[in-house]
């Protein structure tokens, strides 16, 4: 068949292109613009070249925040992925329990970030918060305001509480798509609970798990609102993640050039890490 090439179709994507340009590309270019200029106020800008990038890449403050982010994301993934799988495996597959569980699971996902932060900020307070007060009453020396370890624990538990549901729901979707015949065959073949998980359930969840890991990684690497509301990045800098630091730099210190350079580096790192995750996991998937 003769193919007809009709370039008019490109006009159809024009609105989307414009939208993307206004919402993403132009703001991004502003950031790029700031990152290569300096100012002494008065809206007077002059060329600074890669100065800001040098500064960022050689700043301990940046690398420490980066380290905290990586540790945080690693802990989150190590807890949320297995926990999510475990909960999904134990959720009912039919009957009245299904909608109940699904609603319970969806609940944390529906709460806005800053509200989640506020909930835990209050919940963990040692004077009026149920959690903080009870822990104190039980004899634990818990205080997220001045103990870095407690602050980390609080932020991590909060994230687990907020986001494990996402992993659960994705895994559950994979699990319910497995036909009954597979479980029947596994019984006939004498498969153990572990073998059923390893050879039937896990392969079916592979794909959704890839998505879950990617989403959770990107999200936790960019985490801002919740720890900011709970700890404000403290005590000291101990829960100051890259995003919190960025805001401090840009708005607190009005250091636009450095903040812009940091944004770009931050953005590139997230892209790079996500790409690495994706390639590694899809390669593994293809090899399977």
């Amino acid at each position: 068949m003769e193919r007809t090439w009709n370039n008019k179709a490109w006009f159809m994507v024009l609105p989307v292109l414009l939208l993307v340009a206004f919402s993403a590309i132009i703001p991004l270019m502003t950031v790029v613009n700031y990152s290569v200029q300096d100012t002494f106020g008065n809206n007077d800008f002059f060329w600074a070249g890669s100065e800001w990038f040098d500064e960022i890449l050689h700043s301990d403050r940046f690398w420490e925040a980066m380290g905290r982010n990586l540790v945080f994301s690693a802990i989150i993934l190590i807890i949320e992925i297995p926990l999510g799988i475990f909960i999904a495996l134990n959720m009912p597959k039919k009957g009245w329990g299904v909608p109940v569980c699904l609603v319970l699971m969806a609940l944390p996902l529906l709460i806005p970030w800053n509200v989640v932060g506020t909930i835990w900020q209050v919940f963990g307070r040692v004077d009026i918060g149920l959690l903080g007060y009870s822990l104190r009453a039980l004899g634990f020396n818990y205080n997220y305001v001045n103990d870095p370890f407690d602050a980390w624990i609080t932020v991590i538990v909060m994230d687990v509480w907020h986001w494990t549901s996402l992993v659960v729901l994705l895994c559950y979707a994979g699990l319910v798509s497995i036909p009954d015949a597979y479980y029947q065959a596994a019984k006939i073949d004498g498969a153990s609970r572990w073998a059923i998980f390893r050879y039937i359930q896990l392969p079916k969840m592979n794909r959704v798990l890839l998505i879950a890991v990617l989403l959770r990684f990107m999200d936790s690497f960019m985490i801002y609102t919740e720890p900011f509301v709970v700890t404000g990045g403290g005590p000291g800098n101990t829960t100051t993640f890259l995003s919190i630091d960025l805001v401090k730099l840009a708005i607190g210190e009005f250091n636009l050039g450095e903040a812009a350079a940091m944004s770009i580096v931050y953005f590139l790192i997230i892209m790079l890490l996500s790409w690495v995750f994706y390639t590694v996991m899809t390669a593994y998937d293809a090899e399977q």
Partner: protein
Amino acid sequence: MARIDCNHIRHAYGPHPKSDKDYALKEVHHAFEDGGAYALLGPSGCGKTTLLNIISGLLYPSHGELLFDGKDVTNLSTQERNIAQVFQFPVIYDTMTVYDNLAFPLRNRGVPEPDVDRKVRETLDMTGLADMAKRKARGLTADQKQKISLGRGLVRSDVNAILFDEPLTVIDPHMKWVLRSQLKQLHRRFGFTMVYVTHDQTEALTFAENVVVMYEGEIVQIGSPAELFERPKHTFVGYFIGSPGMNVMPVAVEGRSARLGSQTIELPGAPRAGITGAIELGIRPEYIRLGASGMPVSIRKVEDIGRHKVVRASFEGRDIAAIIGEDEDIPADPKIAFDPAGINIYADSWRVEMGG
């Protein structure tokens, strides 16, 4: 290898069965002899899969019990019953190789690796999968996948029974034939009890020495292919087996004769006195003689299907089919006669014995 007794087994999928309608299996009371090869034949939805799943322990029956060699196994798990079952649609473990798929049931039971290897290779050869042993099972075609499923059933030769649930549906006709004869051969060699579900009558009749016919949740007849053909116990068996199926017509019986419209038909014997309900006469097309003498019919159509011809005619206002030889001609003034050897009488669809 075991004899399997189904004692008054009934099963309903719903929680509160009230009438017979709620039961997927109305009542099955039957023994599968040790080492027997049974074909389970019946239309879609008659409960074949349900019965198999009850035997293998995937389903727990609502009523009744199941015995293996006289031992009650109703409460045993599938694994404890040691039964192999092959399902209607292929089930494979995607991430494993073909070899590992076949080895899986053996390894799960802790069979030593050298034995696993020997059995798996044997099964690979048998199913014609030997050259793809090292491939991942994921990318295979439907019939290759089904062969893997079949192989996983056959790889364990020490089982109490092997249950096949229409295993060859997705396999092409030639391979079907090959696999079927291999199954027969295996059965002779290992002597396991074998139940083979199908809704294809030729498959059932050529495969097994015993054919179990199910209809609406009940076993209506068990017998050799010849018995099913000559003496269908239920009009359903008459319709379902044979091509075309048995002619069944309502009659009035008086002593040794049956009346249909203006015609009187001589019976081979007198049905026992006092039969009630809807009385019908059944005769297979093979037992109807077409010639110059007998009862008048008008012929509507003659189908030449190779070795014989099927004559479709109208007899006393109802359709009737007869089979005649390929070379026989249709007489100008056609008449039919019923061969008494092929006549069966039914009361409410169940066959009535006739005295001599």
